[in-house]
């Protein structure tokens, strides 16, 4: 990489940082408990809107994993999300009614919060429908992972998004509050992902899975990106660029090995396709607050009306992380 492009990236990074700084004004404090954060806590950063039904399980899942504190941005919910979160003892909550899209899909807000509160911590940035899986997550808490990453001088940890879906119409079995979404949506695509290298940011660009297969079979270049780097040991100059797909400085994007080996990696199980999805996608059609004019949601709506079943005979039923590792979707690397 030449000096010019390196400098350009630096400018871009500063731009996102300044933008995050400006957007901090949009956030209004609802409940702040950040004093309770201990020095070695893993912090979870989330922005959300009208996800009340998902919250109990989401919080339980990450508390059990060992996350120490949740820092959340509520984007104008009107279903009790805000009130519910404000009561939680380990949640610090901010709220805003401003445009999600204008905050670059929430990235600006979270960049601000991570910069202010995440410094020196391992920060896990996930959506409410993303469930982080890492090697040995059934026997070792997340601190075991972050301690190991620290000892290995690794600063960021990749986890690919894996879309989970139910067998049959996605709204056939309604999701109940507190229930694991993977009791319903427990199928996934095991081997149809394609990878390209993003020369500019140095990250991998992964596409595929059920969404590419069912919604974007004719326009694969528009299929959503599945590469994510949700877990980062945050330092002041860092910034997310596009969702959690890529970061700056770009060394953080190098979560893959280029010389034949496997680095350790995890997965984000994506519980998007539940019965709530049908309402959400209808709402997004009018709200148009999502990426690229919500073209994704338009594609979903076009297909789901006729045949809302993503399941196929080669779908894989989710068991545990070891299964994902055997299938080659994630890796233990040299963690044993």
């Amino acid at each position: 990489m030449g000096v010019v492009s390196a400098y350009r990236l630096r400018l871009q990074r500063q731009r996102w940082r300044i933008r995050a700084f400006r957007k901090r004004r949009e956030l209004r404090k609802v409940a702040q408990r950040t004093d309770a954060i201990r020095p070695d806590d893993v912090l979870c950063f989330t922005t959300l809107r009208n996800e009340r039904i998902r919250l109990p399980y989401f919080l339980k899942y990450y508390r059990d994993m060992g996350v120490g504190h949740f820092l959340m941005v509520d984007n104008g919910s009107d279903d009790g999300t805000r009130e519910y979160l404000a009561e939680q003892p380990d949640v610090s909550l901010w709220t805003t009614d401003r445009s999600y899209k204008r905050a670059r899909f929430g990235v600006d807000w979270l960049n601000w919060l991570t910069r202010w509160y995440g410094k020196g911590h391992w920060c896990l940035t996930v959506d409410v429908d993303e469930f982080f899986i890492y090697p040995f997550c059934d026997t070792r808490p997340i601190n075991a992972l972050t301690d190991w990453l620290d000892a290995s001088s690794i600063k960021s940890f990749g986890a690919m998004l894996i879309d989970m879906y139910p067998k049959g119409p996605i709204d056939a079995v309604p999701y109940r509050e507190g229930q694991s979404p993977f009791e319903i949506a427990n199928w996934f695509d095991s081997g149809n992902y394609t990878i390209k290298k993003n020369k500019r940011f140095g990250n991998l660009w992964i596409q595929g899975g059920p969404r590419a297969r069912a919604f974007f079979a004719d326009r694969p270049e528009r299929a959503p990106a599945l590469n994510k780097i949700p877990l980062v040991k945050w330092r002041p100059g860092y910034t997310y660029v596009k969702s959690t797909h890529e970061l700056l400085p770009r060394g953080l994007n190098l979560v893959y090995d280029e010389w034949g080996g496997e680095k350790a990696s995890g997965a984000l199980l994506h519980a998007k396709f539940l019965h709530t999805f049908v309402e959400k996608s209808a709402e997004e059609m009018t709200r148009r607050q999502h990426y690229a004019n919500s073209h994704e949601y338009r594609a979903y709506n076009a297909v789901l009306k006729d045949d809302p079943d993503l399941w196929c005979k080669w779908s894989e039923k989710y068991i545990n992380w070891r299964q994902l590792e055997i299938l080659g979707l994630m890796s233990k690397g040299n963690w044993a």
Partner: protein
Amino acid sequence: MSVGFVMLAHTALDRAASVARHWATHDCPVVIHVDRRVKRDQVQKFRAGLADLENVRFCRRYRCEWGTWSIAQAAIAGVQTALTEFPEINHVYLASGACLPLRPVEELRAYLAERPRTDFIESVTTEDVPWTIGGLDHERFTLRFPFSWKRHRKLFDRYVALQRRLKVRRRIPDGLEPHLGSQWWCLTRRTLETILKDPDRDIYERYFSRVWIPDESYFQTLVRKHSGQIESRSLTLSKFDFQGKPHIFYDDHLQLLRRSDCFVARKIWPRADRLYDAFLAPDAGIKNRAEPNPGKIDRLFSKAVDRRTRGRAGLYMQSRFPNEGWENGRTCSRYSVFEGFAELFVNFETWLGKTLGTRVHGHLYHPDRVEFAGGETIYNGALCDSAPLRDYNPRAFLTNLIWATRGERQCFQFGPRDRQDISWFIAGDPNAQISVITGAWAVPLFHSRQSFVDLRKRAAHLQRVEQGHLDILRSPHTRARVRIWSMADFVQNPMEPLQTIIDEIAPRTQRRLSEAPTMVNLDGFGQFLQNLKNQGMQPYLMGDFPVGADPLPPTRAPHKPYLVK
């Protein structure tokens, strides 16, 4: 006769305290060295927690930095304290705060009592160590290392490079043969006393204080001078990964550690509650006299290193995306590409499937759709038959298919009518077996009843595409197993090439082909080619078909399947 422990502690002091307590209450004196960098209130708390034990001592504290003399200094200080304060001990066991005893102390004591004069210390000459990281082995002893590796890596590296260029060398003190080995040892009082009372000790210490990682070489080298009986292995189970940092044990290693029969393991994750509870329990472990046997754990960790450095061949995923040439196998298993066979034989795929007992694909790179075996629309790994999806990343499509069908040989058809983007990839893949009948693309044209003007154009196009493909297959970069026949040669004697291909795919069956695939009717093919020539196109890839001659051997009827004994 007893064993005393010297413990070097710097973090997770509560765990260090409980391990020290475990040893002390089992009548083993413990001397603890606490890193100077630990804060005073923490040290005080730590000491207060162990104050009730009269056989626990704290030695002089040093500021320890990895790779420097300070760690060896700390060990020496601990050893000195142990030898003077506890005259009854016969062996000194060097341990860290992250160590955990896996077997009851009585067993260790009995084990050592049976070997009262043996020094357990890994001590290997620099020529024989495969595990040094960063290329510094003998140079550890001949260069100077004034800069910290952790804090000033660049300075460290540059100074090493400079010394190499200037060929500066330190003299190794007389009578010392440099040896390396694990930092964690168990030595006899006699050996330690002679080391500490050596008249040249000052010279050695001055020398070693500038050696790189002296904690792995000071005692390891000096025992060679002083000890009478060295058992060159460590009693502490400690594994290192490819970066030279120790592997960490967690709760889920419990059974593995139990079965290892090692006395002490390091390093334990401080929050591994189950491990600490299990092994520090009052009467933990089953009484046995087995020799330490860390084989299983060795395998586990060497597998991990292998995974990190070599990975799984043919796998492309979020954390393994090798640069060109570093794939260590472009695909994960062997596969076969057939070009021109499906055109020349009736139902070739079915025949091949039957012969090999597998599923055989049609043209995977057909421009309209992916022709999976059996006309499937979706295949292993949820691969989809959409042509745009496949063409979006043709390589990934193939590597995904081969990965998703691991254990089952993949065979597919290819030809000039297909998307050609994959040509270079399969040509460069040693796992590919490519068999080509050149010019067979003309057979469907011959059978079609199109106008000759169109046919001529089409034929010229296909010939050009196939020629391009053949140029790739014949290029020096090709790694695949390639076989090319002209169509004229192939129809003269189809069984022999087929037999060769089949034998290569399934070498163990050793079966002669009993049933040949039916060849399509080629009556008049020579004339057809002549007509093309007459139209101004030169079909040359199929070889020489004389006008009017029967292309098949005259003894065999062209329509019937024939048998070969």
